[in-house]
């Protein structure tokens, strides 16, 4: 098969270079995922974008000064101009009345504009060495040399180690900066160090995915990871894994066909991971929340039908038929039948030849719903200016929401009332 041949070919020794580049790209994206977790948690997603666009002039100036394409010079240039951009954002924010989004947008476009102008100037300068500099716009991992990859990977790993060492400080300033200051942590240093790590990560990352897509590398893994966990350590782990796999696969895929770009593929794989996390996350995911809503819907139907059976059957003392139930309350038959079957399975009632026989458990459950309904009506009429005929509809909804704790609280608050505003008895 073509595919397997391709896989084998990929891992064979002739492709050592490509393998190293893929792994290197994976490590870079891993570092971005780790550092980016704090960018995300500190709600600085746009700062990531500012930094990544702002490294461009630094790279261009580094080339203009040295005249050679040396990744170390590029890195230094990128770090310097990235740091300047952050400093400008902070300074302007402290000293002016401009809103943060305005400052970010302005800084980003000014730096990027200058960068593009300088790059264009270099391209027309006739210096033969300049070819390929424009790859900083969209990145070009596959063209990295082995040496580049090794240098970048080491920097990325050092970055990750630093973040892990400073986990306590970084978490604290992300959650509660004032408290961190209050207990005497040197938060100016912690913040500056985090900013430095972010800038270094970006400066390295732009060599792989380019200026335009770099922010995605910082933010997307963290945004996805947040849907999977409520622990910061796990979040870092997931974010790092998303980054690594995407970085690796991105290069891998772009190698599979001619003219396949690397950076965009990394971002596409990354976005796919994040999307999956957003959809399938165990607690916060979209499907998990749909399931919660579905369960509520089931609970509401169960309770409503139990209540009706109880009422029609004269406080649950008489057996009623399904026909009586449909005549009294207009349920769609499909919904009614499925709910009745479910209630039978839950031992709330028995269905015998079209008759509905409420069990003790069912009777108690029905009384509970009615009790909650009436307690809520009493509560509303006692504490709010509501007419008696406005109470019922409200209570129809809230009777399903009241938890046992809230019920106890209501009973205590209302001093265990005996009758509701419509003179009906409260079934305890």
């Amino acid at each position, binding site marked *: 098969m073509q595919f397997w041949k391709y896989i084998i070919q990929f891992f064979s020794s002739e492709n050592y270079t490509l393998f190293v580049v893929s792994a290197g790209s994976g490590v870079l994206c891993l570092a971005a995922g780790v550092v980016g977790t704090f960018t995300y*948690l500190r*709600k600085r997603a746009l700062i990531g974008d500012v930094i990544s666009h702002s490294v461009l002039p630094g790279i261009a100036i580094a080339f203009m000064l040295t005249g050679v394409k040396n990744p170390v010079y590029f890195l230094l240039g990128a770090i310097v101009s990235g740091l300047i951009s952050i400093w400008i954002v902070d300074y302007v924010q402290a000293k002016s*009345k401009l809103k943060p989004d305005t400052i970010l947008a302005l800084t980003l476009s000014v730096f990027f504009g200058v960068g593009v102008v300088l790059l264009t100037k270099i391209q027309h300068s006739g210096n033969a060495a300049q070819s390929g500099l424009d790859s900083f716009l969209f990145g070009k991992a596959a063209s990295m040399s082995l040496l580049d990859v090794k240098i970048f990977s080491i920097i990325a790993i050092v970055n990750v180690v630093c973040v892990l*060492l*400073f986990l*306590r*400080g970084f*978490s*604290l300033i*992300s*959650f*509660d900066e*004032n*408290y961190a*200051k*209050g*207990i*005497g*942590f040197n938060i100016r240093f*912690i913040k500056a160090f985090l900013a430095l790590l972010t800038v270094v990560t970006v400066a390295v990352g732009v060599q792989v995915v380019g200026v335009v897509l770099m922010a995605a590398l910082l933010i997307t893994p963290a945004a996805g990871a*947040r849907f999977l*966990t*409520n*622990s*910061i350590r*796990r*979040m870092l782990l997931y974010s790092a894994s998303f980054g690594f796999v995407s970085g690796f696969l991105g290069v891998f895929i772009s190698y599979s066909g001619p003219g396949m770009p690397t950076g965009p593929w990394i971002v596409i794989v990354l976005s796919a991971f994040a999307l999956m996390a957003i959809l399938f996350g165990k607690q916060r995911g979209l499907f998990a929340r749909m399931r919660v809503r579905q369960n509520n819907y089931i609970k509401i139907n169960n309770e409503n039908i139990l209540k009706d059976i109880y009422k029609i059957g004269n406080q649950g003392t008489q057996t009623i038929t399904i026909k009586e139930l449909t005549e009294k309350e207009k349920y769609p038959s499909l919904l009614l039948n499925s709910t009745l079957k479910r209630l039978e399975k839950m031992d709330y009632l028995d269905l015998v030849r079209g008759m509905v026989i409420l069990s003790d458990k069912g009777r108690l459950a029905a009384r509970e719903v009615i009790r909650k309904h009436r307690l809520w009506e009493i509560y509303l009429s006692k504490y709010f200016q509501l007419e008696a005929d406005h109470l019922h509809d409200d209570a129809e909804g809230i009777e399903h929401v009241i938890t046992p704790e809230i019920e106890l609280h209501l009973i205590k608050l209302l001093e265990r009332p005996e009758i509701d505003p419509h003179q009906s008895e409260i079934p305890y």
Partner: protein
Amino acid sequence: MNTIIEVHNLTVVYGRKPALWNVDFELPEKQVIGIMGPNGSGKSTLLKAIMGVVEPTGGFTKVYDTNLDAVRHRVSYVPQRQDIDWDFPASVWDIVSMGRFQKRGLFKKLTTADKDIISESLEKVNMLGFAKRQISQLSGGQQQRVFLARAIAQQGDLFLMDEPFAGVDIATEEMIISLIKEMKAAGKTLVIVHHDLHTAQSYFDHLVLLNTRLVACGPTKTVFTDQILTDTYGGKLTTIAKISQELENKEFPIRHK
């Protein structure tokens, strides 16, 4: 009575607008002290200035007659709960652990003794059962208890609390106030930013009444008078607000020595 906090001619300016203006007072130790005043009167800023969270534009503050840095381990700070995004990936335990960071610094691991202190602090605010709960699932009252537990875990003698009663349920308010009484009995000093005038007399031994400038500072008995309350909350002092607005709009400097 010994002085625990000295605020000397303190001025804090945000932009051009003074949040605190030549505020000068001393607070006695082993008391429950309320800081009160209308919205925007600089109550939170005062706590932040004492904690070194905001830099004073003029004047200084002293705690235990010295620079805060020397005695920071004795001071527990409870920031305003509403200032924080509680949708942060952390459990109740994680937050209360922060109370031990002061002692352990940035890098040292928490010891078993630290963990015992954390559990005890959670127990004190009735939240031990919630230790593993994700903080975004807590009610306002529970969040406030967690912050309190974090401050207790710090094991200081001086507690600075920013609006601990804001937006909490009655049960939490009662719990906090009995905890405060208990702490006072144990010789702690509590400085509490507070909003509700109705409860001021029963909660506090001593009051600081602020409206950007200091209106009054003294034992509740002598300070909690109609005249002083009108001065603090009433119309007369909006003059200060008007002047502040002028300073802000026309970019006048605020002078101080």
